[in-house]
């Protein structure tokens, strides 16, 4: 009897209409409170379940909520709750599928950048609880190893890192919401180009930062788990575009050295080590 009752009540919690057959069925099993009819008892729980989802999503996606306003955000939250049952006890994982869900909603097509803004905010959310980087190979040993066998090694991004390339200027929009420029009349330039970014935690600081076009393919290659020689080729290719005659290991004066490029990734904390493939 317990399982059947729980299944019946669970169905009623997610019905769009309070007058549905599922709700009517469970109402027959609910004993009203002295001052509260059975339907209101059920409505309290239906409302509370929806509110928990709305609040949890609002914490993960605050800028998305600001962009569309609370009524719209609540409507999206309710649809998401019904379409994507929560499969994990951890409320913090509730938003994992939200950006992809948003991308599929035709009624949100006027805010085409909303899904990518959701991906940015989800990246920040994940960075908070992501594990710390594992201790890396000694830098001197790593340097020696990748110089002699770049095809046998791979670089490692921090466990907290998310790379996001968007056709929309979502990081600029996000930043405008962080420093409240939006409230002071900031407007998005309709012709603004797309942006590539990394979302990451460095120590205890969580941030999103622009990635220059020259570094983007290298970071993507590292994220894909490709060998170091791939990233050297990408860096070399970029350099050779400027100086086609220079060697791979040394750079002409007016170009960015390959090893300097890799070094910069380490210094920024975007690459945290290497390991054999």
């Amino acid at each position, binding site marked *: *009897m*317990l*399982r059947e*009752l*729980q*299944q019946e*009540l*669970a169905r009623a*919690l997610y019905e769009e209409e309070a007058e549905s057959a599922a709700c009517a069925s469970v109402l*027959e*099993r*609910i*004993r*009203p*409170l*002295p*001052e*509260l009819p*059975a339907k209101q*008892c*059920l409505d*309290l*729980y239906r409302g*509370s*379940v929806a509110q*928990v*989802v709305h609040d*949890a999503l609002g914490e993960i996606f605050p800028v998305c909520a600001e962009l569309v306003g609370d009524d719209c955000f609540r409507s999206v939250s309710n649809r998401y709750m019904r379409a994507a*049952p*929560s*499969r*994990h*006890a*951890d*409320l*913090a*994982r*509730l938003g994992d599928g939200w950006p992809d869900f948003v991308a599929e909603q035709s009624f949100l097509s006027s805010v085409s950048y909303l899904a990518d803004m959701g991906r940015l905010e989800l990246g920040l959310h994940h*960075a*908070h*609880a*992501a*594990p*710390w980087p594992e201790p890396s190979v000694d830098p001197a040993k790593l340097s020696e190893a990748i110089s002699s066998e770049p095809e046998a090694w791979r670089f490692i991004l921090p466990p*907290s890192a998310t790379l996001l390339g968007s056709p929309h200027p979502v990081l600029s929009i996000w930043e405008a919401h962080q420093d409240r420029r939006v409230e002071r009349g900031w407007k998005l330039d309709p012709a603004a180009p797309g942006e590539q970014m990394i979302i990451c*935690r460095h120590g*205890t600081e969580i941030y999103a930062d622009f990635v220059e076009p020259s570094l983007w393919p290298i970071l993507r290659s590292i994220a894909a788990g490709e060998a170091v020689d791939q990233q050297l080729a990408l860096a070399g290719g970029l350099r050779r575009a400027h100086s086609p005659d220079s060697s791979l290991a040394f750079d002409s004066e007016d170009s960015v050295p390959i090893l300097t490029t890799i070094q910069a990734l380490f210094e920024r904390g975007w690459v945290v080590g290497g390991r054999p493939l």
Partner: protein
Amino acid sequence: MAALREPGNIEGVGLGLRSAHSAELLAGVGDVPWLEVLADNYAHGDGLPLRNLESIRERYPVVFHGVGMSLGSAEPLDKSYLDAVLDLARRIEPAWLSEHLAWTSSGGRHHHELLPLPFLDETVQVLAEHVQQVQDRLGGRMLVENSATYMAFHDSQMSELEFLGRVLETADCLLLLDVNNVYVNARNHGFDAREFLRGLPADRVAQMHLAGHDDHGDYLIDAHGSPVAEPVWALFAEAVRLFPEVPVCVEWDRDVPSLEVLVGEMNRASGVVTEVTEVALAGQEGLSHAP
């Protein structure tokens, strides 16, 4: 597997840990004797939350509280959830672990809400089996909390008080007595809160909770977003008389105020405990000097 620490250092009135207060608590603000940690917030990830908790643990004795175990679900316990909580317990070594008498999942779906149970023989058995599974892995007795409810079922075969007593006995576990929940249920379901307290098995009451509720006129909601209500303070004094020396935790989860406000609630609860204890001691003195 033993994950629990000796509970001897959990005494008096503590606070529910909220991340907004971590820095102040680490600096020793408020003279808080111990903290209750919502294990769900730390069990599923690494990174900053867990590092903060480890820092807190270095300074404070802690107990674990949970909301996602779904002890009352007719389905088996979520093994991955249980593993995560027990792993965290091994790492942090709380004095004990508590969970709600409720269900939060069914059919593989998590509802993230403490849903009400029908008071059935079958429910008692389900809860007892689940509690015993947790206790076997924990290496000690756990605490179960009486939940606030806004619904009852025609199928129920007993009162909440009888149900609670039978669960504690059958599962051989301890009670986290939420005094606010007793008050909320007494108002919502129409029973006498003091009579309810007097009917509880005193030897199983191991912790108490205090929190605020929302009064909607016809019904109350256990909202944890306001100070403890005056009638609940009065009921708490009665609970302290009945269950002396039981540790108390003040909870506040929504619209979390400054630590100063929470410490104010904590100190008021400590004052009630002191006052009730002194009256009880004076009564004993009087009896011992009686002719």
